[in-house]
């Protein structure tokens, strides 16, 4: 035993006698994680969160979250002598006076964009591969919660500098709160400490931004990761991979090195973006005043779809008994997003209700093998994209020499027409891909080699695909739709006829598939 081993041994002994950690470590150091690039998306989000904590803490050392009015006397000449809030002035100081301050601000903002973008793409990966199915519904809901909080956190974060652009965003947020029936004015007065903008809002959202929400993130991310750990990661189908096993690399040393290394890569790339790509140059916008606004006001991208929905809303207000209901705000800013996020959170339960599938799933779906789910996903993305496009309608109009009216009407019609169209096209594409898979298994790969037969006919030589590939293309289950006849076996009419009818119908739509190639099919072809 070397001296080093002796020291390590006695430290380990000390800890283990007090915690019993060895038992747990023994089991978990050799834990196996499956490998796939798409499993890195969640990691990117986690690492961005750490980068946000580090860079955010740095910024708090100089940022002064106060709406107290000061006269700017820093080194940025165009704004010298101008009245502004201490929040804005200290943001300018971080950008111009603190060495490395601008870099950290830009790293913080870039990693916030990557944080939310990473969550969205991670969510898409989980959705399209069916990773949310039993037993992972809890983690899906936590994930939707994290996304929602992430959007709020990002909005509060870019509102803090109190520049003209972000102040306009707060103005809009206040109008949304105020539009709530009955309690709107009360909530707005409570949030802002009186009439907009007051002097209370920046300090308050600062506490929420640096303490409350990060605390919630820490708690939720911890539970999210513990569940991933305990339930073990899902894996893509392939030879040797089953519902009962996990095929991959052990935590020690391979995953430790890869995941740890990946953190540094994400941090490095974010720092590179912070160094070369200017983001949110608040000194160009000037301090916030309610009487001014910049043309082409744009929120960060993850709020753009919401702004786009608000922009395309019809000018509807109701006046009932002397009270006002602003449908033009309530529908696009609260009702539609509410429905979207609730539907998103409930999707695992809706799908399992439709399919009647209550079993555990650890093998991921190939998106083409769940055409209905894939089509629904693409439909939702299309909806969001139309909304996002309309959120940038002024920028698009000036860039592509269109009028805002053209884009607005495109969006107003497109938001209803394009998503269903995307659904139909995607579903058909999925079925075509299934058909191609079947062809490939049964008739092999086209080699491009033409051969002339003795009787003069030209044929292309097909080469059989490998057994591994054939397995990949045929391993999935094809579950028949739920049998929910109106009358049960003994001829008694089932209760809830309408619900059952709807469920049976959706189940049929969900089960649509091209029959996969079977061993029998192959035998038939060989005998042919």
């Amino acid at each position, binding site marked *: 035993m070397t001296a080093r081993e002796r020291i390590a041994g006695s430290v380990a002994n000390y800890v283990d006698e007090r915690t019993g950690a060895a038992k747990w470590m023994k089991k978990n150091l*050799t834990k*196996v994680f499956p490998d796939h690039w798409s499993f890195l998306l969640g990691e990117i989000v986690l690492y961005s969160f750490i980068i946000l904590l580090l860079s955010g803490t740095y910024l708090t050392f100089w940022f002064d979250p106060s709406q107290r009015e000061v006269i700017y006397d820093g*080194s940025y000449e165009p704004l010298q002598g101008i009245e502004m809030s201490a929040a804005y002035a200290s943001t300018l100081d971080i950008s111009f006076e603190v*060495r*490395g301050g*601008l*870099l950290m601000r830009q790293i913080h903002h870039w990693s916030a964009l990557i944080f939310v973008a990473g969550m969205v793409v991670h969510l898409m990966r989980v959705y399209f591969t069916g990773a949310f199915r039993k037993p992972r519904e809890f983690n899906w809901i936590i994930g939707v919660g994290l996304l929602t909080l992430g959007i709020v956190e990002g909005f509060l974060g870019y509102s803090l500098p109190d520049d003209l652009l972000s102040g*306009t965003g707060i*103005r*809009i947020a206040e*109008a*949304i709160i105020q539009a709530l029936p009955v*309690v*709107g*004015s*009360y909530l707005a*007065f*409570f949030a802002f*400490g*009186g009439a*907009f903008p*007051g002097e209370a809002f920046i300090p308050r959202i600062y506490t929420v931004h640096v303490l409350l929400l990060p605390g919630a993130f820490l708690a939720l991310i911890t539970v999210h990761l513990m569940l991933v750990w305990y339930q073990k990661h899902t894996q893509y189908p392939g*030879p040797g991979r089953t*519902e009962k096993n*996990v095929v991959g*690399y052990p935590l020690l040393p391979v995953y430790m*090195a*890869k995941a*740890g*290394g*990946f953190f*540094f890569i994400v941090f*490095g790339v974010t*720092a*590179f973006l*912070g*160094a*070369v790509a200017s983001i949110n140059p608040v000194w160009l916008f000037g301090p916030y005043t*309610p*009487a*001014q*606004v*910049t*043309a082409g*006001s744009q929120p960060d991208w993850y709020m753009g779809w919401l702004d786009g929905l608000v922009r395309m*809303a019809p*000018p*509807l*207000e109701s*006046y009932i008994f002397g009270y*006002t209901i602003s449908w033009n*705000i309530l529908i696009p800013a609260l009702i539609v997003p509410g429905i979207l996020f609730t539907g998103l959170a409930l999707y695992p339960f809706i799908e399992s209700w439709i399919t009647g599938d209550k079993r*555990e799933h*650890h093998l991921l779906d190939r998106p083409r093998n769940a055409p209905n789910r894939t089509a629904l996903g693409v439909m939702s993305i299309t909806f969001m994209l139309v909304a996002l496009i309309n959120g940038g309608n*002024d920028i698009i109009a000036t860039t592509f020499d269109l009028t805002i009216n053209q884009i*607005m009407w495109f969006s107003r019609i497109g938001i209803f027409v394009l998503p269903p169209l995307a659904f139909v096209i995607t579903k058909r594409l999925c079925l075509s891909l299934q058909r191609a898979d079947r062809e490939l298994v049964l008739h092999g790969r086209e080699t491009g080699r033409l051969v002339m037969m003795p009787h003069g006919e030209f044929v292309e030589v097909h080469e059989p695909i490998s057994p591994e590939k054939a*397995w990949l293309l045929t391993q999935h*289950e094809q579950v028949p739709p739920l049998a929910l006849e109106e009358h049960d076996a003994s001829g008694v009419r089932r209760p809830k006829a309408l619900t059952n009818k709807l469920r049976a119908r959706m189940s049929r739509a969900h089960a649509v598939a091209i029959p996969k190639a*079977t*061993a029998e099919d192959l035998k038939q072809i060989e005998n042919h």
Partner: protein
Amino acid sequence: MSNEIEPLKDPGLPAHTPRRADIDPLAAKKAERQVAILFLLSAAGTILLIASYLFIPQDVFIFFPVLGSTNAHQLFLGLGLAASLFFIGMGAIHWAKTLMPDEEVVIQRHEFRSPDEDRAEFVKSAKEGAAAAGLGRRSLIKRTLGLSLGLVGLSPLILLGDLGPLPDEKQKMTSWKKGTRLVTDPGDRPIRPEDLEVGAVAQTLPAVAPGTHRKLSDIAKDAVLLIRLRPEEFNLDAERLSWTHEGIIAFSKICSHMGCAVALYEQQTKHLLCPCHQSTFDVTRAAKVIFGPAARPLPQLAITVDSEGYLVAQNPFNEPVGPSFWGRSA
């Protein structure tokens, strides 16, 4: 449940093919050197970071294609930091991929569902615990506990009461009074009609006593836009026409949709456009909404001139300005 038909056979995990570094000590040595070089690059990055911090002054700007004129201090600080982090990551991953074992390992999953006896045991202990506490039997305790917990839950709401005042009638009012002068923003100069040419726009606020500090929450309701047209261009009823003065018409600058400043005036079409959500108002028809999500015209301020010939408000706004709210009567 589905596979009554015979599926294809799972060929099982493919055999492991060793990498070059696994069989060739020279290749392994080479990989080791590559990892070391990557780590050294990271060290060089940190040195660049330190050197930039110490030696590059903060006011040096250099020109780069694509980036444009860039602050050299921030740029090299950032590039140093980026390199120092990035190459640690690259080194670690290259190490893992070339030198650490790459044979896939298989472990078995366990079922999450607890065994039946554990479940039964749990139910038994839970029931015994509840019975021991006697919550079911002692309904008086149960009800009073429910009451007190419910009331305790209310206390944060009570304690947060001072977050803000309750909205009152002031929410519906602005600082404009009968005879308040319109002054330029910025500049605080009173305006005579002849200061505005036809087609001109002026941003104004109500005059305050010299030295008074305007609160942003007042500006958020008081901002008014003056626009001068030719009087014959108006398409207004008699009352609204009487609110204008020599072709000058005044509107609240705060959008009736979500409160942004309605800052874009198209002189040709005489439209006012809000840059936030593109609500468009027709100036000639008392700011009627002609496009976009706003549901109401911009409130019009009645103006005239005082004895010294300066523009003043005839009356306060006759409706609340800014976005709608529940208590706002139509």
